[in-house]
């Protein structure tokens, strides 16, 4: 019978589970959980006169976050993220719908064409926009030629430019989940709806939108949240006029060197993320459709 027990031990799953899941667990512990806890702790810490972190409790960082100047920036961040998300839905939904339901043999190519731009560095592409929109840029020249603007027209450094850059960065994150959701849609449902007397618009409202709402929700999450932190877009296209939470955080860690304040700002961003994800789950959203 002793052979039997050793066999059981061999077949038990402790060792293989440890070998396979162990590395992931360690990684998550040291590079995800521990850093975030540290950030949370630091957000309640003071700094000395040389901006070194001093581990003494203070809530000052959080009270500082309530200043009018900062609140303006939060409001702008939320506005930019919201408008970006909204435009992404407006562009992304019909676009995803058309390529997902095309009967063309080039469907796969059409899908790939959405992804290909992403293999060029995003900074370079945003910079491409800047040189396209800038006052020496192609667009201004074109408009001047057409006598629609004079050579000194300034298209950069406006909230609208930042939103354009954000939409540019995130529209594929809206298109891809929508494409998946719309492609899954059973075509016979649309036929059934029109057979039962619904006009196309009615079918859209009654059948298509409800069945693809999961895709819309996950697209919105995947646009809205990262948009808050994409500081380089507003750096390059907004030129410091359109600062968002991301820019504030970046500044605390790079130039202003006030880490505890940056940590407190990050905590706000984390809480906002958690809130949005909870709402997403409440609406029946599936976490797995957020993984691209």
């Amino acid at each position, binding site marked *: 019978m002793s052979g*039997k027990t050793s*066999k*059981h031990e061999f077949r038990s799953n402790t060792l293989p589970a440890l070998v396979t899941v162990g590395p992931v667990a360690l990684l998550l512990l040291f590079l995800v959980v521990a850093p975030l806890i540290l950030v949370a702790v630091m957000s309640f810490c003071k700094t000395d006169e040389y901006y070194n972190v001093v581990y003494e409790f203070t809530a000052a960082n959080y009270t500082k976050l309530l200043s009018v100047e900062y609140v303006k920036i939060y409001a702008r961040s939320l506005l930019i993220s919201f408008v970006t998300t909204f435009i992404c839905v407006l562009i992304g939904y019909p676009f995803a719908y058309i390529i997902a339901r095309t009967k063309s043999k080039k469907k796969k190519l059409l899908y790939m064409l959405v992804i290909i731009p992403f293999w060029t560095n995003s900074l370079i592409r945003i910079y491409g926009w800047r040189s396209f929109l800038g006052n020496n840029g192609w667009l201004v020249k074109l408009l001047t030629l057409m006598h629609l603007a004079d050579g000194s027209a300034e298209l950069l450094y406006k909230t609208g430019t930042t939103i354009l850059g954000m939409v540019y960065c995130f529209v594929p994150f809206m298109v891809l989940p929508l494409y998946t959701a719309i492609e899954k849609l059973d075509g016979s449902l649309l036929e059934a709806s029109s057979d039962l007397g619904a006009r196309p618009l009615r079918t859209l409202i009654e059948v298509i939108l409800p069945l693809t709402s999961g895709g819309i929700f996950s697209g919105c999450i995947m646009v809205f949240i990262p948009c808050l932190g994409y500081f380089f877009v507003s750096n390059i296209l907004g030129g410091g006029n359109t600062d968002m939470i991301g820019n504030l955080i970046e500044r605390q860690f790079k130039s202003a060197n006030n880490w505890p304040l940056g940590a407190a700002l990050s905590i706000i961003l984390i809480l906002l993320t958690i809130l949005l994800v909870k709402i997403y789950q409440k609406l029946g959203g599936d976490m797995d459709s957020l993984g691209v």
Partner: protein
Amino acid sequence: MGTIVEMIGVNKRYGSNHVVKDLNLTVNEGEFLTLLGSSGCGKTTTLRMIAGFEEPSTGSIKVEGIPVEEKEPYERNVNTVFQTYALFPHKTIFDNIAYGLKMKKVPKPEIKERVLEMMEMVQLSGFEKRYPAQLSGGQKQRVAIARALINKPRVLLLDEPLGALDLKLRKQMQLELKRLQKKLNITFIYVTHDQEEALTMSDRIAIMHDGIVDQLDTPVEIYEHPATRFVATFIGETNTYDGCVTSIHEGIATVTLENGAVKVKCDDSFSILEYATISVRPEKMRFQTMPHDGFELVAIVKDYIYVGAVLKCIVSLPNGNELKIERLAGQELPPIGSRIYPYWEPEDAVLIHNDSYKIFKILDEIKLA
């Protein structure tokens, strides 16, 4: 014919779920044995324990007289045909079938020769370079069988291998499997929930129910002499009557039912005042318009259904129970709504110990534990 597989007092529990209960099963060499039962009865678990994918919680399994419960699946001289076929999707048909021989390090030329020969036997010649996804269901099935048989196992285990095929193909594969089994003289242990399949293919059938083998016998015996009420109702159509044995005389028992007394042949395992069940197949049922000696059943004709050569009469007893009676078509029939007297020849009916008998057995078991 020797014994090839022996299961002695095998139990399988998953937590508090007792799936196989004190199973004793002996499989003879070269026979086609079927484990038949509805889903969740423990038949697949039994098969998987023989294959080595599951370990029995207690008890012993012997293959060719050697205990195997400690052995890994790859150390056992048995092979399995899986319900889902379990073909390797990334390997060609040739490589799928050659897999077992490759593992045994058989020389390459011999592998090639044997695989081609096996493919011919299952009528798959020419499919060597295809992948499983390019085959039809029936073809995949043949690959799964060929892949197992090429290893010349002493026992082949088949887990509902025809379940995913359509009816016509299933019938055809049933005959083919039976032919292969006879030709290769390999012991088959076959799991299915399809009673017709079990009856046509098997040398013996083990009917499983709730983790227990209710009856292990030839198809004819199981059909003609079901040992339990479950077996009687599970196999074929039957009419059952619950009642109390009121007298036994020269091997004929008089059983009093709710609707009156009837007669049935019985053996000496029954005693007076025992509650028991009578099973009578529809084709053994008779009726006439006058009362029959020894039978007190009265019924009303409700409906007639033509099923080709036979005619099914649906009649209802005073307590509302319906009976099915089969007659050859073309005979004169009493009109619907008229009163008839059902009966049977006492030797055509089977008297079965009631389920309460089983409950006592289970109670004994619990007491022992």
